[in-house]
């Protein structure tokens, strides 16, 4: 039995290392200098004949790539800022419109409720390609194509946050809300003093899942934006050539940094969110 456990440990640890390999490699290689990278990946990047002298750890670690990226490439800054400008309004709007809707779906029984829950569920499941044309036509109708709003507005009204938060609000025990009402709290007070604090894990996990989703947005900005100066950072590496390999590792690391930090901070919320996204009606 013990032997088996040790075997499981070894096997899973090896598997995790394989899974983390891309992240580790990107992180470590971002500390290499241009010369070292050229030596390592020359055969891939420039078609140099000769073997790949590939190594994982840098011999001469340096932060030059980061400095170069942060000081000399205004593009990166602009795109990073674009991402911030697109993602945070989306998240804010999702909460603003999503929380009341989720509260209604999760805490009240009324005619039509079931159909609405199904509606949000289906909308959550549809891939972007299905709604692409319709979104495009409505965005062009409002004349906001190629503005930040073209990415923000469809994101605000996505179904996932409503669906997720509904699940969490449903999980709040009735007795607590009733107790609050007995003590004289109105509907609004009961929501702010009982519902909101108890539903907070749902709100946080919705925020995390949606941050990961929209920080990684590729299709919507690709289809609804034309001007390069409005692109989010998720499209940065598609626009630079591999010749900039010196900074591209550093760029990769900086792009994933917010997501990874958020993941490290809120992993338990993230897991709760994943589980809730699967809870059936």
């Amino acid at each position, binding site marked *: 039995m013990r032997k088996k*456990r040790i075997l*499981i440990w070894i096997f*899973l*640890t090896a*598997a*995790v290392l394989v*899974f*983390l390999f*891309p*992240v580790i*490699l*990107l992180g470590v290689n971002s500390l290499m200098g241009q010369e070292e990278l050229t030596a390592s*990946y020359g055969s*891939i990047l420039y078609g140099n004949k000769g073997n*790949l002298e*590939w190594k994982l750890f840098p011999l001469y670690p340096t932060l030059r790539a980061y400095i170069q990226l942060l000081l000399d490439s205004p593009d990166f800054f602009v795109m990073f800022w674009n991402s911030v400008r697109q993602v945070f309004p989306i998240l804010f709007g999702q909460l603003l*419109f999503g929380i009341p*809707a989720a509260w*209604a779906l999760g805490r*009240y029984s009324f005619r039509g409720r079931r159909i609405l829950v199904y509606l949000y569920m*289906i*909308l*959550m*499941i*549809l*891939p972007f*390609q*299905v709604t*692409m*044309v*319709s979104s*495009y*036509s*409505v965005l062009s109708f409002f004349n906001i194509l190629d503005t930040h709003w073209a990415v923000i*507005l*469809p994101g605000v*009204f996505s*179904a996932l946050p409503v669906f997720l938060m509904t699940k969490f609000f449903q999980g709040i025990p009735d007795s607590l809300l009733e107790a609050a009402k007995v003590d004289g709290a109105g*509907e609004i007070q009961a929501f702010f003093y009982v519902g909101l604090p108890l539903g907070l894990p749902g709100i946080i996990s919705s925020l995390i899942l949606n941050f*990961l989703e929209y920080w*990684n947005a*590729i*299709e919507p900005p690709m*289809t609804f934006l034309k001007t390069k100066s409005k692109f989010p*950072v*998720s499209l940065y*590496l598609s626009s630079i050539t*591999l010749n900039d390999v010196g900074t591209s*590792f550093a*760029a*990769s*690391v900086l792009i*994933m940094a917010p*997501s*990874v930090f958020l*993941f490290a901070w809120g*992993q338990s919320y*993230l897991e709760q969110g*994943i589980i809730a996204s*699967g809870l059936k009606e």
Partner: protein
Amino acid sequence: MRRMRHRIWWTKWNCTWRNRRKQGSRKNCIKKQNKKKNLLPWLLLAPSLLGVGIFTLIPFADVFRRSFQKAVGTGFVGLGNYRTVLDNQAFQLAAGNTGRFLFVCLPLLLGLSLFVALLLERLGRKGNLLKSGFLLPMAVPAASVVLFWQLFFDREGILNHILEIFHIQGPDYMNSSGAFGVLVAVYIWKNLGYDMILWLSGLLGIPESLYEAARIDGAGEVQCFWFITRPLLVQTAFLTGTLSLVNAFKVFREAWMIAGNYPHDSIYMLQNLFNNWFTKLDMQKMTAGAVMLAAVLGIFLILCQKAEERWKQ
């Protein structure tokens, strides 16, 4: 005496009338409150529904209508657009590839993630760090990991470099049918953790006492899995399958980042096709295609639901 009677009558009348009025007003009050209560959820829902309606439902209805029409003007062409799409060679290729991808990936991902979940469950709380390791890829944006995939799967890349040690000559992955394998690997790398969490939550719902009882009766590990875990996980399986299907369409991000608009034929997916139709503004094909894709997905999900219900009985 008469006056007295009158007075009594008057008070009586007054009291009952007052009471009735009061009662009436109370009833009215309750009705009003009820109405208020019924209205409140709709009021809360209104902004969100309005947004969803404007940005998704109404435009999609419009797309549905347009899918039966000519590109210019309002001529009705019936199923003509659908026929054009179905006869389109690129569509056949893309639909076939997408189908093949789903057919290979979904069982593979479900199996692998279940396997990892079962092993992780054995380790208990101590395995939490490993769990994070499997889940982390979910948080890594396609934009940052694309560089790694390019270096890893290049003809002279890291993978072939490693294979060379074992004297195996690897192919040029991105420019051969190996691209399909790359896509499968990327999909599994990204989604294994997500599915694993779902499986783990399903496993958590199986009472330990069942296993203990079975073990006392002399059941081995394989039997425990087959007769207890497997039947009790079916619901989780349906659900994990559905969510994996949803996520399978998102693999396009990585695919597009690695291979661009015109990748090798083996990974030319519906998403590429839609994207290319879009750049050409080929509206008829797009509308018909979107309706068909939605219909196929919808039917598939309904069938899943039905199969699950039947299984429950």
